């Protein structure tokens, strides 16, 4: 059995096989693999006995359910009004410089992806960003550099 098949089966065992389990299962795949591959979608459709087109349509509707491969750490910088007013563009520039990627790209080592997103609900502490599930607020270029260093250190320790 392939790895993705096993993952989908485990998730279906955990959340159930009714259509109501679709989002939790897709979220589970993203947590594990950072994105939902076509193979994974077909597996989900088979497990839940719904069409693959339905799975695809649902997955592509939600901005946090990535269907393209992303890095291990997905950085989502809030681009909505108050974060923009408080210097979101500087934060993006700094991240681009530190990571050596453009907005929307993934680093060569596959560790970081830099994205923009809509309101994170941290408007009083803008600019704000999410790295995977963790919010970081009141960002400054210096602070951003430190945060990325912290993640890089973490990666070095793992390897």
């Amino acid at each position, binding site marked *: 059995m392939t790895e993705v098949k096993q993952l989908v089966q485990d998730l279906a065992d955990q959340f159930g096989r*009714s*259509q*109501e*389990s*679709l*989002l*939790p299962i*897709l*979220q589970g795949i993203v947590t594990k693999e950072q994105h939902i591959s076509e193979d994974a979608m077909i597996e989900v459709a088979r497990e*839940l006995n*719904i069409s693959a087109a*339905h799975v695809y*349509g*649902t997955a592509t*509707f*939600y*901005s*946090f*359910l990535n269907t393209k491969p992303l890095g291990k750490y997905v950085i989502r910088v809030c*681009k*909505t*009004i*108050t974060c*923009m*007013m408080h210097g979101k563009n500087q934060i993006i520039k700094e991240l681009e410089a530190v990571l050596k990627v453009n907005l929307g790209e993934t680093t060569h080592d596959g560790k970081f992806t830099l994205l923009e*997103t*809509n*309101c*994170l*609900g*941290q*408007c*009083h*502490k*803008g600019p704000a960003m*999410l790295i995977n*599930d*963790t*919010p970081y607020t009141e960002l400054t270029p210096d602070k951003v550099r430190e945060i990325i260093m912290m993640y890089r250190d973490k990666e070095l320790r793992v390897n």
Partner: protein
Amino acid sequence: MTKKQLQRLDLIFKNEHDIEEILTKTFSKSNEEIINDLISSGLKGRGGAGFPTGLKWKLASEEETDSKYIICNADEGEPGTFKDREILSRVPHKVLAGMAVCARLIGARQGYIYLRGEYVFLRPQLLEVINEFHQLLDKIGLDFRVEIFLGSGAYICGEESALFESMEGKRGEPRNKPPFPTQQGYKSKPTVINNVETLAHTYSIFKYGADKFKDLGVQDSRGSKVFSVSGDTPIPGIYELEFGMSLQKFVDDFADGDAKAVQVGGASGFCVPRKKFEKTVIGYQGKLRGTSLPTGGSMMIFNSSRSMYNVLHNYLDFFVEESCGQCTPCRVGTQQLLLGIEAVKKGDQPSSYLDKLMELAEAMRITAKCGLGQSVANSFSSIVENFKEEMIY
């Protein structure tokens, strides 16, 4: 001379841990009494639409069916709003208490908190509180369980019927209404869906009584409201204030002394220019161009250094991305409005083109299927009307 500050309230965030006592006290009352309390308190939905909460519970309680649901809407996606996150992280037990009372009243055994994906970091601590709460429910003998359902980054899922679709494992596309959620909601069963703040307020009503709640506020806007204040202010954050204040008073207290406009109700709300601060009252009665003010509680302050063109451009960019794409007026309308203001700014279109765009926005208000598409006209028209020169030059 010292200016009189707006009265800051501390009802919602007061740390009270007498849930068991309040639930036992409330459960000793009849359903009619509870509903009457809620209706006479004047509590209305705090998500923005303002539907009377007592009436919603009453309608759901009258439906006869085998299963019903109570859902707490924590898909707070409106730009400039962050109060629900604060309530869920500081006083989640009050929200759960409100859900439990509703569950017993309408006869639901299952409840959900639909938590937006951006707030997934709250889940571990919420689960702990829910577990404790389940133990309390067992103790007082109420057969009711609450689960967390996570969203995945779609603004539209804050619309109640889109939220149901999302929970049912579908694209978050709003349904036609009627039927309303109290008739056919989640899994086509009668469902009460309330905003986080609304549920927290019901706790205060059960504890302090309807009269105390009703004493706050004005006319049809009763009680207090949690406001999310951001933008050009030295003191951004969460403030609980009484309904009925004038926007001028609000600006005196919160702005940096140079406010030129306040966006009330987020990107789907209204932009009020300086000259109208005095006349604008915050509350469901606050009449702005004949429509009542959306009261999700988002207050974004812009000072004179801000370009209102950039503000509007940012909103439209947001709507283009968040439109679910189901109905044409919203899908195409949002894109055309964005292209339109860009064309006027560049000089590719004459300034009179702005009137055409306003007509389009008004057409969207009438023809779009859900609140998202209908409310684009709120911010669009109020910004273009009041800051026309900034759109052109």
